[in-house]
């Protein structure tokens, strides 16, 4: 018994040792450490379930979630309607599952926009310094001093209610966080010898930024991106809830909650289920984000 255990332990450390000296990419590195993180794995499991829901939603027709059915109005959760039905008799389970695509699109889309603006502007500010830095940072400070939800409301009002506009609005208001993070990270990298070497060889500044500086200062940005996914989904669903999101028949979770609010007394399931889905999605991203943060933290890494 003990022999067997010892044998197992030995092989395990052997693998670890050989792995330790094999060169891994940065992304590979993150996944390597995530495997040992229970929270991140829990997040991964929840996220897989959400992906399954998303894949399932591809088989739901638009008519199935928008057709009004008077006979099943306010139907309680039952075998026929697992999550019950809403005030127009539409099956809530289908609507909530269909809503997965909006939250995923908003989460990834908006973070992509924020991160793109933030990383590009932040790299320029950090790398060039001086006047460019001053102007970019002051503009970012101005954008950051307008409360995010208010700014999102104004942008959606101007551009009109649609999924794309909501993504753009949330993406723009989120950019300053990524900008500040990227700039701070670039500042620590730009004075390294390899940057000087690249300059001496005569590589163009833009190319130095994107091939030398940025890849070496990316880990805090990756942490911000994974942590930002959850917050972004909450902000976007709050905007939808307030009536500044995806327009009405679309079953975006925040909008479904807003529509079900009037009926909480008699049909609490309309608000309950989409809320649980928002919470689980955000929780998955937060768990995963924590895992990525720990994986990239040099202080915690070797423990």
């Amino acid at each position, binding site marked *: 018994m003990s022999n067997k255990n010892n044998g197992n332990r030995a092989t395990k450390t052997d693998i670890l040792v050989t792995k330790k000296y094999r060169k891994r990419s940065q992304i590979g590195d993150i996944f390597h450490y995530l495997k040992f993180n229970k*929270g991140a794995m829990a997040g991964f499991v929840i996220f897989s379930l959400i992906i399954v829901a998303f894949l399932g939603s591809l088989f739901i027709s638009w008519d199935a979630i928008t057709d009004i059915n008077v006979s099943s109005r306010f139907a309680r959760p039952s075998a026929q309607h697992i999550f019950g039905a809403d005030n127009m008799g539409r099956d809530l389970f289908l609507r909530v599952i269909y809503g997965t695509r909006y939250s995923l699109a908003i989460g990834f889309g908006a973070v992509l926009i924020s991160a793109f603006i933030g990383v590009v502007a932040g790299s320029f500010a950090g790398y060039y310094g001086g006047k460019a830095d001053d102007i970019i*940072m*002051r*503009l970012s*400070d*101005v954008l*950051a*001093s*307008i*409360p*995010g*939800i*208010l700014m999102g*409301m*104004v*942008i959606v*009002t*101007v551009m*009109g209610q649609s999924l794309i506009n909501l993504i753009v609005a949330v993406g723009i*208001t*989120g950019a*300053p*966080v990524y900008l*500040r*993070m990227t700039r*701070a990270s670039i500042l620590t990298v730009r004075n390294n010898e390899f940057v000087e070497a690249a300059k001496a060889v005569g590589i163009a500044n833009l190319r130095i930024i994107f091939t030398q500086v940025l890849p070496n200062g990316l880990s805090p940005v990756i942490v911000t991106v994974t942590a930002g996914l*959850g*917050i972004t989904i*909450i*902000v976007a*669903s*709050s905007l939808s*809830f*307030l*009536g*500044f999101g995806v327009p009405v028949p679309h079953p975006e979770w*925040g909008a479904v*909650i807003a529509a079900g*609010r009037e009926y*909480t*007394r008699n049909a*609490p399931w309309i*608000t*309950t289920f989409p*809320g649980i889905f*928002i*919470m*689980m999605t*955000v*929780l998955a991203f*937060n*768990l995963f984000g*924590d895992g990525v943060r720990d994986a990239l933290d040099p202080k915690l890494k070797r423990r």
Partner: protein
Amino acid sequence: MIRYVLMRILWLIPVIILVSFIVFALMELAPGTILDAILAQAEGMTPEGREQLIRQHNLDRPMIYRYGVYMLNLLQGDLGVSDHTGLDIWTMFINRLPNTLILSFTALVIGASVSIPLGIAAARKAGSITDNVIAVFSLIGMSLPLFWLGILLLLLFAQQLAWFPAGGNNHGIRSIILPALCSSVGMIAMTTRQTRSNMLEVLRADYLRTARAKGVPEEAVIRKHALGNAWIPVITAIGTSLAAQLAGSVVVETVFAWPGIGRMAAEAVMARDVTATTGVIIMTTILYVLVQLVVDIMYAFVDPRIKSQYINSVKKAKRKKPPTLAPAAAGGTSK
């Protein structure tokens, strides 16, 4: 120090100018505002009447002219009147501000008194069951959409149990409990995590080992040596969440029908009221930036390292150039 504060307050001026310009310009572009209504009204008028109406609202001038007029009025404390109700916006804002302040401070007190002890407990027993339970709950708290939590609280405590009123602020202290509880949840989750990680970092520091080696009792080690240093980021966390609450009050105030500035802003944007929206956003931004400034100053006061760093930089600055404006602590943006 005074110089720094003055610089930060002066920095407010360009911020206000830019913020008001962005909001003013965006709202003029928005469809369905008062400007469209005026133009539609002018359609059916005689040429003279139309010209008079258009001139009265400066619609024959470029947008920048209307913005200039707006800013001149703003300098005199005049935010204009609402496009729809004709009420004075400055008066509306001042009437509603105390409600938001009361709500934010109550939430802050609840949040701080729950999250700091929890964070310290979690850090002292890092890796234990207590720590894990606190970690799970704070993660769930961070993942809750506040508007949903608010609806659930109302459903349970106002509709089913009828312990608290279902909204508004006309029931004295009973009406503030649910909204304050709701808006403190996000803050509790964030601050608990922040306190825990700061405390952990401090607990591993060498000077604590020194203190223990000297034979200082464990309680005194925590209270005198550890807490003093763990405080600083916690204060920032609390300050930023106060700023976040002032700004993000839109959601909670809407759910609980709380008559504060957040709901005023939401109503103004929804009604496409250009003047009211611009006014309330400018005022909220000023408030938001001022709170962040207070946090930064407090930060400098609590942490002698930052203070001395600052004094050194002023001494250097006298030789070189004025100190750059330090932005609020990282992660200080809110949603």
